[in-house]
């Protein structure tokens, strides 16, 4: 919700704290502030009002009230302007379904001149991202953004018989909305109609048929309250979500209707009155009034839940900052919940109010006691065991996506046409992964790429944990991989102590671990896994997408003892372009000397390396080797 700083200021006599200070206060005590944007001499806050406060805070008034509590500012007393109406209503309002049309108030005003809005109104609306239409439409929008109550205005001359009926639509009925779309209506939907036709989809969108335009002189103002679920269903069904539907589906209090009606009437009269203006009385149909709710809380309740040391006097002071009405008996406060605070229904809700105003940042921190007995999760235990064994054999772990093009379980709303199903096997992705990585084998410093995944698959109704293992060397026959995989199978058997059923297909072995785990007993602890915290120093370095350049170098050294020093020298002299540690590819001993052959992989993170550039580096490396009295072969 966009909130204008200047608009907020209208609620206070004293000057508001700076936008930065307001941002800080609201974030620590009320809402997350998505952004604060400077707009000329105004600042606009994007306040993330979540559903618990969408009843009362999707408005400048709501935020002003909140700010008054957290910044200890007094709200300006609102002056009630008397409306000089004719004393009778001149419209007939019929509410056919009071469960979903909880309140409906309508007022006829005649002889207006609808012109463009004055600058102050345009500015206010534009500041919060709204477009100006004409003075009447803008007024309705303004009052909604000001007090949170959606308002609709009809051109009275386009309403037959001056009658307003809130009823469910009849099957087959249609409406052309204000934006010109034709919508099919169903009997589930509440509509506002006259004696002949639908005028609006209640709480969601007005119809073109009774649109207010510049020529309009007579209007009917609707200030109503609709059932949240009904509005949500309807708005989903017709595919229209807007400021109005959002407020209704979050449930707002029907008690706010008269106040909003007074505000909108006054504003329209201010903007569009002519000398002949006729203001009729509002016809207000309100069948079941909102029951009053009382909730109790004590300082003990607060400290029991939040663990903060708070006294009765602190609780009282905070309730006063909210200007809540309450009675106090000993240490217990019974609060009469304001009608718009539909989020306060039980003690915990009041504890939250007290806690956040007191300041969650003041919550003490109780250090936990190490110890206590945990239950062992079999799947975690054995998966970890298998993982450790595979890592030990040079296999690296991958995680793949669950969504695939083909499978047994289908998603109703896939993110892409090739991601419609849940995987029923891990093997295909392991295969892809082998191919993909084998092109990088030099960079990875391996002859053979080895990967595995332990993850969930979906076989019919059943969710299983599988492990899939694959190994591949570019250019090799598949038989080589098979040899590798046979070793993996015997390893699994050894680790788990049971024979496992392995499916080997096209170079990848896959096992249904869920079935295996079932037969295994649950150990008492995780101790023999020897799990420790992961290393703290791993840091991600971006992968370069430029091609690698390979160079081999063989060096005669006097003994094996020189090897480590040699490798350090090569690494150091090769510099930043060396993409990985030199890999020993050959060792050869003759006449008391040893020759080590290394494969060096060069790559830049910024460009494709030229041969000449690598030659320069190799020259440097050779030079350093010679300086160390070793011999380059």
């Amino acid at each position, binding site marked *: 919700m966009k909130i204008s700083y200047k608009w907020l200021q209208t609620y206070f006599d004293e000057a508001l704290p700076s936008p930065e200070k307001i941002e800080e206060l609201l974030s620590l005590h*009320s809402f997350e502030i998505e952004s604060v944007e400077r707009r000329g001499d105004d600042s606009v806050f994007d306040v993330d009002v*979540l559903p618990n*406060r969408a009843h009362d805070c999707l408005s400048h008034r709501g935020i002003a009230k909140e700010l008054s509590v957290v910044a200890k500012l007094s709200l300006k007393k609102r002056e009630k302007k008397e409306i000089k109406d004719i004393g009778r209503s001149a419209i007939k309002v019929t509410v056919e379904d009071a469960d979903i049309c909880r309140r409906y108030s309508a007022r006829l005003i005649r002889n207006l001149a609808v012109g463009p809005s004055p600058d102050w109104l345009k500015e206010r609306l534009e500041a919060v991202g709204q477009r100006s239409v004409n003075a009447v439409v803008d007024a309705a929008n303004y009052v909604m953004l000001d007090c949170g109550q959606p308002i609709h205005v009809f051109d009275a001359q386009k309403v037959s018989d001056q009658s307003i009926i809130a009823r469910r639509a009849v099957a087959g009925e249609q409406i052309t909305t204000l934006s010109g779309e034709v919508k099919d209506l169903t009997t589930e939907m509440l509509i506002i109609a006259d004696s002949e036709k639908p005028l609006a989809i209640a709480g969601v969108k007005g119809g073109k048929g009774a649109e207010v335009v510049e020529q309009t002189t007579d209007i009917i103002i609707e200030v109503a309250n609709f059932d*949240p679920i009904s509005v*949500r269903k309807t708005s989903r069904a017709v595919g229209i979500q807007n400021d109005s539907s*959002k407020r209704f589906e979050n449930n707002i209090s029907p008690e706010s209707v008269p106040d909003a009606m007074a505000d909108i009437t006054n504003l329209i009269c201010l903007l569009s009155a002519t000398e002949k203006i006729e203001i009729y009385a509002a016809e207000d149909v309100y069948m079941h009034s909102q029951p009053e709710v009382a909730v109790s809380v004590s300082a003990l309740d607060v400290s029991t*839940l*939040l*663990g*903060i040391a708070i006294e009765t006097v602190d609780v009282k002071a905070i309730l006063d900052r909210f200007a809540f009405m309450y009675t106090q008996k000993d240490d217990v406060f019974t609060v009469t919940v304001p009608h718009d605070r539909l989020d306060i229904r*039980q003690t*915990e809700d009041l504890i*939250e109010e007290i*806690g*956040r105003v007191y300041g*969650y940042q003041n*919550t*003490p*921190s*109780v250090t*936990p006691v190490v*110890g*206590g007995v*945990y*239950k062992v999760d079999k*799947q*975690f235990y054995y998966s*970890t065991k298998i993982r450790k064994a595979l*890592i*030990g054999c*040079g296999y*690296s*772990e991958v*995680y793949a*996506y*669950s969504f695939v093009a083909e499978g047994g*379980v*289908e*998603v*109703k*709303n896939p*993110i892409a046409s090739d991601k419609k199903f*849940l995987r029923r096997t891990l093997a295909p992705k392991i295969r*892809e992964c082998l191919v993909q*990585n084998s092109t*990088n084998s030099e*960079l990875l410093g391996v*002859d053979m790429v*080895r*990967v595995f995944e332990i*993850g969930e698959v979906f076989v019919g109704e059943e969710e299983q944990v599988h492990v899939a293992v694959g190994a591949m060397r570019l250019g090799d026959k598949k038989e080589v991989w098979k040899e590798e995989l046979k070793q993996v199978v015997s390893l699994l058997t050894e680790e788990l102590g049971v024979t496992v059923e392995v499916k080997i297909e096209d170079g990848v072995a896959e096992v249904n671990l869920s079935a295996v785990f079932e037969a295994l007993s649950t150990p008492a602890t995780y101790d023999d896994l020897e*799990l420790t*915290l*992961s290393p703290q120093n*791993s*840091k991600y370095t971006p*992968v370069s997408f430029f091609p690698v350049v390979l160079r081999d170098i063989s060096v005669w050294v006097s003994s094996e003892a020189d090897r480590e020093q040699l490798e350090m020298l090569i690494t150091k002299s090769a510099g930043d372009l060396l993409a990985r540690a030199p*890999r020993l590819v*050959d*060792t050869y001993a003759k006449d008391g000397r040893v020759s080590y052959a290394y494969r060096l992989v060069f790559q830049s993170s910024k460009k494709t390396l030229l041969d000449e550039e690598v030659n320069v580096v190799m020259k440097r490396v050779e030079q350093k080797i010679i300086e160390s009295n070793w011999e380059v072969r």
Partner: protein
Amino acid sequence: MKEQTNIGHIHPLTHVINDVAVIFTELGFSIARGPQIETEENNFDLLNIPDFHPARDMWDTFWLKGDMKTLLRTHTSPVQVRYMKEHTPPLRIVSPGKVYRYEATDATHEAQFYQFEGLMVDKKGEVTMAHLKGILEYFLSKFLGEKVEARFRPSFFPFVEPGVEVDVRFKGKWLELLGAGMVHPKVLSNVGINPEEYQGFAFGTGIDRLAMVKYGIPDVRLSYQGDLRFINQF
């Protein structure tokens, strides 16, 4: 000469999950798990997120085809529901696992990612928001390898009351890292635990997010590409 024996690499997300296991089992928390295909009841209704409530919009959901209203769990909270239904307090669990959100992917959003939640339920007054803060600071300090401070800000999750966002001061900046709160009394009674007698806290965070913060990974999607040039860095 034959190639040297290479040691394989553990996926960075597994590192995080293992760290969670190490730190929390030391505190007596059990690892709990549940299925990824869940019922609407466990994923939403019992967690105080009724149908047609705007709070449902906080979780973009993948629904599955078929007669039953089944879905891919949008959080690991249904694991808490399942665990609470089957056990009597005191309870201490963590629940690492894969979750799904129906949303467009970018550097910070994925349609699948990993989460872990923690739950602790005990007699009233025994487990408060102060204990929550203590445990989170303890966990994050161990996990990140330096003493960190946590800060609560008001927020809203239907299954807790009060609900908070948890910021962590790490390398001189406040990072929003977790959502948390005191388990909503309605949730407790929904799973057969008497809220007059018991209370507890729950928290949740993204395992991917923790990995990104700890290792400086800039894009959540890197974890799911199967690229060893990435994985072998950890």
